[in-house]
């Protein structure tokens, strides 16, 4: 407990590695005879935050909250509709591929399905070597050495390098994905539901591995997940997304112990917990997630919010700092 | 593809042997004699029948559907001719010796300088619709062909009218009257030629169409007029009328009850369009009664069809030949573009320029081998480009019997020797000498002859490059239309010849478009035209002598090696009687055809 707080203190002094400003991604909906755009899915609808060097920022949200879209935009795997992305103070929002390349080296992503994201025709060595080949000028021998070193780092045997992805279990494949992501010493790693497909015992192994690697290489993580427990475990700060917007972002402790946004509160009370002594919250959210193509006016959460009032329908609450480092987008905390 | 073809051949072979064995398998070893007796009895029965019987119908097969233009002045293909041969008649026809004999004209007179021919028509001849046939129909027919707009409408038979007097003026539309053909009275018609004509009967032998049907039809509309296209509307004087059809499938001919030579025995003749691969089987089952022009029975199937007990076959020499031509000269690009055929501009092809080389090649090719191997012996080797049936044909020319020794000796003599020991001869300058052989797809036998020829020539040290065979249209374009120096030395082609006259000028005079060899031998032109020159040429013996000289010249100078003449193989069911084929057609006096089993 104490150790974690220490870490937080260090972070506040540190500069941002990524800053995003009012970032938006609208996916057009085609319809009608001429396939004209008849509307938009507002997957990400004006999100602002920064990721600080060396921290793990967790992003939680349910399906359709836009968290994965957000991750992909930062990597520029998706073109933002609007807004700004600064990576180490460079505006990379609209960089073309060629100019993007030096930044790509510094950012890596790990996906949920380790099988689908690895080319099954390539051996582990080829898979891990590939980014080295593209991004570095290492000799063949150096590359092979590096591959062995990486494999051992992520808890696999150097001799595994000649095998193919299908010869590994899910957890091992995720380790390969991690090794591949780390090959070129990135500064930022985006983990998009990286442990969601794994069994708990394996999930724990991978989470521990990620923590170790972060310490060793001074990595910054953007950890995207729907699982609040996992996010809590690994993150320093946590952002909660709902329908493409950031509902709340704060240091982990604040989020989990003193959630301010009604959605965060509801989310936390929905999570079943293994602490059989703890008193149950019996208040569970009603209703479904509204469609992102037609979000409610004003506050997107108001349709399910137990505290909703008139103003919530009229005015979209902006993210505001309520406590030190604790931001929330809710009219309950205005003034 | 080769594999598939092989398979296909194998299947046919399998089918053959099976069908051949079937009756044998049922046979008891001891009954053969008995069967023979039976056959004899049957034959006796046949002979017992006294002459032809009226009635019955037969089915003929052709492998491709006619395009559908059933009008003698506009049709263009052999399949349409299969119908028209029954329905339309000309003033004269030809007999077995290719002499002209009376048909719609029972007699004629030719004037002294052979500029006029007067024909006396049969009286009482009726068109299928009952109208009388008169001299006006003859005049109408020839005027139609000569009229302006005829070629624009798609007609190609102008050769019958161009020698006639006043053609130019009439064709240009300058006059309404055509001097060339005039009706003296209802049953007398006179043809007048602009120049003395060596073979006037040929020109008057065009099938006649009815004036009363087409009189009001503009020439441009004639090809698509119902009287050209539709059964029941196509009117001729022939023994059968075209009465019904399922287009592209079957064409029904019904007898002309009032036929002027007498009522035909058969009630109906139906042409069916049947795929080549199925024809022989249907002959055996009796669904088809006869197969005739243009393709008859394939040589490869001869033995099999001959084995059918119910089928009789007729084999006769075709009016045509296959050749391997030498591209002796090329046209210039400019000439090709302008369409000019100007021998003065031609460029010689040095690779085959030496007569000795050409003769050596003729010796090197095993032509009897081709006839045996590819035609199953159903054909003959010929040495001169005139149909063997003609009086003008002669065997008295260099024969080039297959001899590698002769070939090699001639090549050595010409200086084509192997100087670098690669097994192939170099040209006299010691440069590499490769002959490019081009050939078209389509005719399978011809396709298969190409590699055989290559093998024959390489056996005497001539390196031959077989070019990729091209589809006919593209091929003709290469060798004839765009015959610049495009790397073709040898080409394969076949010609079918008309039966009317042996004159070879259309194919071999220097400026003829079809002189694909671009053979430039003034002596040849001299002889060709001498044979057509009046008045000497009025004498057939004179023409014969001249043509023989020309054939000898041809066989010596060799613008082409004549490879073989394929035999025509007709087949018909034995129940069909009265078949007396002409050298050029099986359809002869079909009103005399009859069947045994008529009711």
């Amino acid at each position: 407990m104490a150790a974690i707080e220490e870490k937080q203190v260090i972070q506040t002094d540190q500069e941002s590695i990524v800053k995003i400003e009012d970032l938006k991604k609208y996916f057009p909906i085609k319809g009608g005879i001429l396939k004209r755009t008849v509307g938009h899915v507002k997957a990400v609808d004006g999100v602002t935050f920064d990721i600080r060097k060396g921290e793990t920022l967790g992003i939680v949200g349910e399906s359709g909250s836009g968290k994965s879209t957000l991750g992909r935009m930062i990597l520029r795997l998706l073109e933002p509709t609007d807004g700004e992305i600064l990576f180490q103070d460079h505006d990379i929002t609209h960089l073309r591929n060629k100019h993007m390349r030096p930044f790509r080296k510094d950012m890596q992503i790990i996906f949920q399905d380790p099988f689908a994201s690895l080319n099954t025709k390539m051996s582990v060595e080829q898979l891990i070597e590939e980014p080295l080949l593209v991004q570095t000028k290492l000799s063949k021998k150096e590359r092979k050495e590096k591959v062995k070193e990486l494999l051992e780092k992520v808890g696999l045997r150097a001799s595994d390098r000649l095998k193919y992805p299908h010869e590994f279990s899910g957890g091992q494949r995720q380790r390969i994905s991690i090794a591949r992501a780390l090959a070129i010493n990135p500064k930022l790693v985006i983990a998009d539901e990286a442990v969601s497909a794994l069994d708990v015992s394996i999930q724990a192994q991978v989470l521990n591995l990620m923590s170790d690697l972060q310490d060793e290489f001074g990595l910054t993580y953007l950890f995207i997940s729907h699982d609040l427990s996992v996010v809590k475990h690994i993150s320093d700060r946590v952002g909660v997304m709902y329908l493409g917007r950031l509902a709340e972002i704060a240091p982990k402790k604040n989020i989990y112990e003193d959630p301010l946004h009604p959605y965060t509160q509801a989310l936390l009370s929905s999570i079943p917990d293994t602490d059989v002594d703890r008193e149950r919250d019996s208040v569970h959210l009603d209703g479904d997630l509204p469609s992102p193509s037609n979000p409610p006016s004003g506050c997107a959460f108001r349709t399910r919010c137990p505290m909703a009032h008139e103003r919530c329908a009229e005015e979209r609450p902006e993210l505001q700092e309520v406590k030190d480092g604790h931001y929330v987008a809710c009219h309950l905390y205005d003034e | 593809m080769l594999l598939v073809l092989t398979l296909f051949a194998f299947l046919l072979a399998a089918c053959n042997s099976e069908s051949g064995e079937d009756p044998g398998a049922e046979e008891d070893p001891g009954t053969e004699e008995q069967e023979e007796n039976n056959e004899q009895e049957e034959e006796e029965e046949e002979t017992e029948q006294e002459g032809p019987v009226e009635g019955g119908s037969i089915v003929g097969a052709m492998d491709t559907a006619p395009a559908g233009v059933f009008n003698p002045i506009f049709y263009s293909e052999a399949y349409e001719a299969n119908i028209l041969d029954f329905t339309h008649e000309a003033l004269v026809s030809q007999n077995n010796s290719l002499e002209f004999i009376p048909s719609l004209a029972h007699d004629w007179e030719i004037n002294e300088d052979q500029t006029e021919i007067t024909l006396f028509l049969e009286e009482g001849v009726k068109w299928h619709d009952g109208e009388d046939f008169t001299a006006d129909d003859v005049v109408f027919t020839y005027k139609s062909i000569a009229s302006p707009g005829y070629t624009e409408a798609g007609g190609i038979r102008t050769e019958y009218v161009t020698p006639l007097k006043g053609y130019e003026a009439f064709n240009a539309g300058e006059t309404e009257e055509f001097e060339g053909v005039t009706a003296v009275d209802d049953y007398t018609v006179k043809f007048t030629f602009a120049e003395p004509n060596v073979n006037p009967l040929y020109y008057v032998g065009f099938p006649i169409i009815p004036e009363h049907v087409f009189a009001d039809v503009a020439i441009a509309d004639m090809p698509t007029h119902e009287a050209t296209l539709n059964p029941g509307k196509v009117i001729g004087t022939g023994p059968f009328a075209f009465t019904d059809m399922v287009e592209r499938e079957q064409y029904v001919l019904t007898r002309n009850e009032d036929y002027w030579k007498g009522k035909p025995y058969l009630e109906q003749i139906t042409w069916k369009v049947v795929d080549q691969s199925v024809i022989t089987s249907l002959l055996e089952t009796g669904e088809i009664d006869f197969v005739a022009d243009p393709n008859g029975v394939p040589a490869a199937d001869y033995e099999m069809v001959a084995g059918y007990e119910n089928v009789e076959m007729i084999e006769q020499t075709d009016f045509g030949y296959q050749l391997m031509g030498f591209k002796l000269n090329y046209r210039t690009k400019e000439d090709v573009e302008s369409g000019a055929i100007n021998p003065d501009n031609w460029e010689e092809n040095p690779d085959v320029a030496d007569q000795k080389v050409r003769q050596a090649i003729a010796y090197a090719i095993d032509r009897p081998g081709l006839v045996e191997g590819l035609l199953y012996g159903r054909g003959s080797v010929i040495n001169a480009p005139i149909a063997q049936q003609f009086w003008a044909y002669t065997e008295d020319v260099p024969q080039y019997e297959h001899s590698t020794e002769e070939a090699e000796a001639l090549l050595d003599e010409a200086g084509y020797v192997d100087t670098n020991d690669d097994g192939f001869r170099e040209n006299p300058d010691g440069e590499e000498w490769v002959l490019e052989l081009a050939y078209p797809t389509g005719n399978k036998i011809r396709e298969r002859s190409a590699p055989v020829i290559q093998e024959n020539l390489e056996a005497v040290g001539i390196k031959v490059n077989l070019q990729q065979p091209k589809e006919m249209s593209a091929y003709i374009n290469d060798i004839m239309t765009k015959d610049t120096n495009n790397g073709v030395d040898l080409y394969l082609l076949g010609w079918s010849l008309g039966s009317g006259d042996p004159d070879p000028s259309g194919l071999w005079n220097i400026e003829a478009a079809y002189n694909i060899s671009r053979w430039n031998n003034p002596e040849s032109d001299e002889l060709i035209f001498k044979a057509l020159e009046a008045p000497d040429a009025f004498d057939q013996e004179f023409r014969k002598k001249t043509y023989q000289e020309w054939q000898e010249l041809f066989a010596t100078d060799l613008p082409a090696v004549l490879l073989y003449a394929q035999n025509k193989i007709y087949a018909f069911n034995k129940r069909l009687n009265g078949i007396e084929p002409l050298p050029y057609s099986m359809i002869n006096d079909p009103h005399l055809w009859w069947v045994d089993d008529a009711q």
Partner: protein
Amino acid sequence: MSNEPVLQVKDLKTYFYLDDNQVARAVDDVDLTVRAGETVALVGESGSGKSITSLSIMQLINKPGKIVDGEISLLGRNLLDLSDKQMTKVRGNDVAMIFQEPMTALNPVYTVGNQIIEVLRKHKKMSKKQARLRAVELLKLVGFPRAEETIDEYPHQLSGGMRQRAMIAIAISCDPKLLIADEPTTALDVTIQAQILDLMSKMKEQLNMGLLLITHDLGVVAEYADRVLVMYGGQIVETSPKYDLFKGPKHPYTQGLLESLPSVHKELNRLGTIRGTVPPAHKFPTGCRFSSRCPHVMEQCLEKNPDLIDIEPERSVRCYLYTGDEGAKHGGDRRETSHSN
């Protein structure tokens, strides 16, 4: 609330006969009991055999799998003695099942109503009209506010949570005595998961069903189960009332599992882990199936698979760590005791 057992499974063995003559003993000697009104959780990681167990109860095992031995008594009747035809009268009627993927578990070409009505007509022999009325009632019961309209909608028009509600409506339509829910909320968002689990609990109470809840999520178990069966390698390695299990897990596997779980309410610096991975079902180690991953592995563990032995009333564990005096003592007086909650 009645306490009589609804389902009793004894010595169930379901094996898969693989191509290369190998046998995957996916379910091996499983005993379990579900009583009316009780929620029994079957917990395990992927490959532990929990889903095969549930499908075996339904007799929905496809080739090359086969139930090779055991007894499955539903309301005292051994289902394994029934003919295929008799079994169709049991499924959906006496015992119903809900599956993991609400997105694909409903037939896309039929309306939601059609798929409920079908069951009612089959098992309850209702007329079309009756069945439709009942289907609307059921949809209302599982929380469709516009049930009259929803009944004519197609599955693709519903959200995941709504589809799972529809699945529940189908499952409870014939008042089954036993409801098997195989990972019913794994594919759903947390807020929706809570709704669905609440609904299932409510239905269980109302209908006095036995609920066999199959899940990998220990949080769900902690909140909704009465008793817990932990499966590993095709076998039950520990059974316990919920409270006891989370307070004091006995089997090293259960212990490892709980330690490796991150929690919202606890602060852990580092997660506990279980080394290695679950071996595939045709390559279980001889001896204890957990031996390849167990931190306490002993010599005897490698030789012979331990039996499931009772260590306390209502608690049993399959581990040599408990076969000492204590184990023997408790093992001796094992009997079927009724459980009250």
